[in-house]
């Protein structure tokens, strides 16, 4: 549920966890990011950073500049002035990420797992079987058939939890047990009902359904998209995956290696929760892409 009145929970001398509700719910997450945007606009003296997540925001502050109670009062003021959820709009850029589905890189990672840790069904087969798909082509079609919402980042720098906005494209997948000791950077993962792009070579537990040559995190800041940031995405952004073949994959990879790859991003895109709700009403949930 979304609480009638948010909770302000102390986290030591310089943090507040503001809990707006207690469930996994798109409207609630949208509210979290809309409020975060409002708080940022307000430039409250003494507020340092916001850490928005599924249903809460951790706020860091300088107690020499603002007290817990004053900060709570200011944030609550913005919360109450937000108006109804239906009226909210948020600037939400869309990032386009090319994906080679059922690719050789992640297949190699799965084969390595089978050889070293234990036999396991191929990840794309797991997704096809559990979601009653007719094959790899439909897996690619469904995974790339929706925009994804960046609900939060965390666990690892630059790793975003992405949620399908089109409910007809929501897949489910179990996690690796035991987890993998390595996952290639650029792997497209699926775990529970969340998809992600691995920002670096890290351990991992999500099923691997494809690979992108496009980095979502770049510690060396080589590409133009990383001139101000090390990570591409921020909470409240959107991602659109599009399927590519091996040749286009190789081309993009060459551009990334050369350091002149330009990320496709629609910075003008706004997200209206009313328009989204109205669209949801029109959907035939039995339709399959």
């Amino acid at each position, binding site marked *: 549920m979304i609480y009638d009145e948010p909770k302000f*929970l*102390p*986290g*030591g*001398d*310089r*943090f*507040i*966890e503001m*809990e707006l509700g*207690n*469930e*996994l719910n798109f409207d609630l997450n949208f509210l979290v990011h809309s409020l975060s945007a409002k708080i940022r606009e307000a430039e409250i003296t003494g507020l*340092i*950073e*916001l*850490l*928005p*997540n*599924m*249903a*809460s*925001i*951790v706020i*860091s502050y300088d*107690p*020499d500049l603002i007290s*817990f109670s004053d900060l709570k009062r200011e944030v609550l003021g913005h919360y109450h002035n937000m108006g109804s959820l239906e009226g909210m709009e948020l600037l939400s850029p869309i990032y386009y990420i090319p994906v080679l589905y059922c690719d050789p890189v992640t297949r190699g990672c799965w084969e390595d797992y089978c050889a070293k840790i234990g036999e396991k069904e191929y990840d794309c087969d797991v997704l096809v079987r559990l979601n009653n798909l007719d094959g790899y082509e439909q897996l690619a079609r469904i995974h790339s058939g929706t925009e994804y919402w960046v609900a*939060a*980042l*965390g*666990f*690892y*720098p*630059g*790793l975003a*939890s992405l949620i399908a906005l089109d409910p007809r494209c929501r897949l489910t997948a179990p996690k690796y047990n035991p987890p993998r000791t390595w996952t290639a950077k650029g792997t497209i993962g699926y775990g529970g009902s969340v998809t992600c792009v691995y920002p*670096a070579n890290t351990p991992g537990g999500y099923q691997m359904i494809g690979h992108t040559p496009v980095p979502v995190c770049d*510690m060396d*800041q080589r590409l133009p998209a990383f001139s101000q*940031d*090390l*990570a591409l*995405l*921020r*909470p409240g952004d959107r991602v659109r995956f599009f399927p590519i073949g091996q040749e286009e994959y190789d081309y993009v990879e060459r551009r990334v290696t050369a350091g002149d790859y330009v990320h496709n991003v629609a910075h003008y895109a706004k997200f209206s929760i009313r328009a989204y709700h109205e669209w949801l009403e029109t959907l035939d949930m039995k339709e399959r892409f």
Partner: protein
Amino acid sequence: MALSVEVIKAGLETSVQDFPGRYGFWEQGFPPSGPFDMWSFRLANVLVGNGPEAAGLECQFMGPTLRFSEDCVVAFTGAEMNPTLDGEAFPMWESVAVTAGQVLACGFARVGARAYLAISGGIDVPTVLGARATFHMAGVGGMEGHALKDGQSLNVGAGAGAGAGVPGRRVKQDCRPAISDNKEWQIEVVQGPNDDWIADDGIERFLTSEWKLQARSNRTGYRLEGPDWIFADKASAKGPEHGEHPSNILDHGYPVGSINLCGQTPIILVNDAPSAGGFINPFTVPSAAFWKLAQSKPNDIYRFRRVSVDEAQELRRSIDRLCAVESIA
């Protein structure tokens, strides 16, 4: 010839850090990093006349061996690592003139765990996302993203402030953190944010028990060993999105210093910790107690003392006041 510092031996995991660390990118998963014991670090900068933002070295458990290319003034604070300059004992908590070619060598930390070295002018590595602090897990900041390596050379900046390069300045005894080889520590905690997931007798048990610092602890997290936790009913009566174990909660942000309960194992999340995850944080260690964490060693014993948010903020102010020239004799 610009001053540089040659790393003859890097030590166990010596890294470039700056105060207060990296801010503004936490929501993308980049933690603040920065010196673990900021009190000792800041005083080292004060001693050599640097501004508070100047980068220095954090030496962990076993310090480095360094050669200085030019005359300079340096100061060592924090843990006692038996530092020597060309074989002669090097005084701690004091600004010392070093001449070109001299070698500063450290051993194992005898008292405390982390020592801080400031050089007048500050260490000059590129700023990454606004800070020079090293976040080595992701290879961000510091010296090429990681801890120092043998044979590297560190540049030193020219950005020293007033009083730069004055040797013989000392930090007054009562202005230093009380680092001792006593293996027991009293650590302040503020209750929350998720204390309502723990039963009242569980809160009581946490506050009255001894907690042993495990060896698998580092700048990411401090793992503690102690009695089992007792959960409130809320921890079991929750929606499936919160996860199965009583310590699971819907993914949320983690305050730096929060005591993150993974199953039955509490982990204090410190400077390089993950920013978010799916476990509860029943207590938080305030910033004023971080120096104690930084200076303790595996198998040390912690007892926690509950303080209010106001008290924690007052403790922080009292340390801030000491990180100033008034503490120098």
